[in-house]
């Protein structure tokens, strides 16, 4: 089957070595229900699939609300708890401002592009 009829895919996960590189399918990360499902998918990578290095690529994302930030913090904490690491990369300038203004750039590792994001795990 080329595609699954049910359960819309929100994330694309690619393994590069032991790093799970995650791309967001949607351009906008909005709506509590949608954000909740994205959160579940991200947490599953750690809790069920045992991934310890996650690189979130925001290259496709042009808008997100503060509700999504909570999920990123939870993911960061989950990975910290198992000696893993979360890195964010390719964040559009306006969205990056949201991270800077809320000072989340102080607790989350943010790289300009995917290549430098991958390198920040080594």
């Amino acid at each position, binding site marked *: 089957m080329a595609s699954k009829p049910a359960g819309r895919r929100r994330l694309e996960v690619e393994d590069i070595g032991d790093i799970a590189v995650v791309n967001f399918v949607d351009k906008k990360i*909005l*709506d*509590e229900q949608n954000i909740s499902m994205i959160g579940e998918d991200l947490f599953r990578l750690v809790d069920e699939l045992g991934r310890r290095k996650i690189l979130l690529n925001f290259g496709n994302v042009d*808008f997100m*609300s*503060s*509700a999504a*930030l*909570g*999920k990123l*913090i*939870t993911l960061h*904490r989950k990975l910290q708890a198992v000696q893993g690491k979360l890195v964010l990369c390719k964040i559009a300038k*306006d969205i990056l401002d*949201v991270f800077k*203004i*809320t*000072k*989340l750039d*102080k*607790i989350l590792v943010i790289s300009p592009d995917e290549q430098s994001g991958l390198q920040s795990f080594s």
Partner: protein
Amino acid sequence: MGSNAIAADVEIPSDLAEARLLQSQIEEALQATSYTEHDIFSIKLALEEALVNAIKHGNQMDPDKRVVVNYTVTPERFDIRITDEGPGFNPEDVPDPTLPENLERGSGRGVFLIREFMSDVQYHGRGNIVTMSKLKNGASEA
């Protein structure tokens, strides 16, 4: 009101899908008035946070409660007033999310972001009415 002004008074139910339609309508008005991408992002973000606050925290998603939105877009500024039917709140009671002890909290950044991204923000009445303004940033290239 000048011919370049777009104004509307809208009443929506406590439904985030309805809020999304209203946001698209306002985004189109901003684009038609040549706001920069940066200004549009700022207004969209503040609008998202304020409408979610009104629908979720104010009206508690109650389908019998409404949110009233009045907005004006001119070539100089964007003004909006959002009124919900909730009990209101005191914005000064909302903790600063950038303090070290609050940095890792999962929520509570909406009110702070609205203040940072808009030119002026004021709460009225019991705190169930918010007015926000954004002065258009610089001249357009056109």
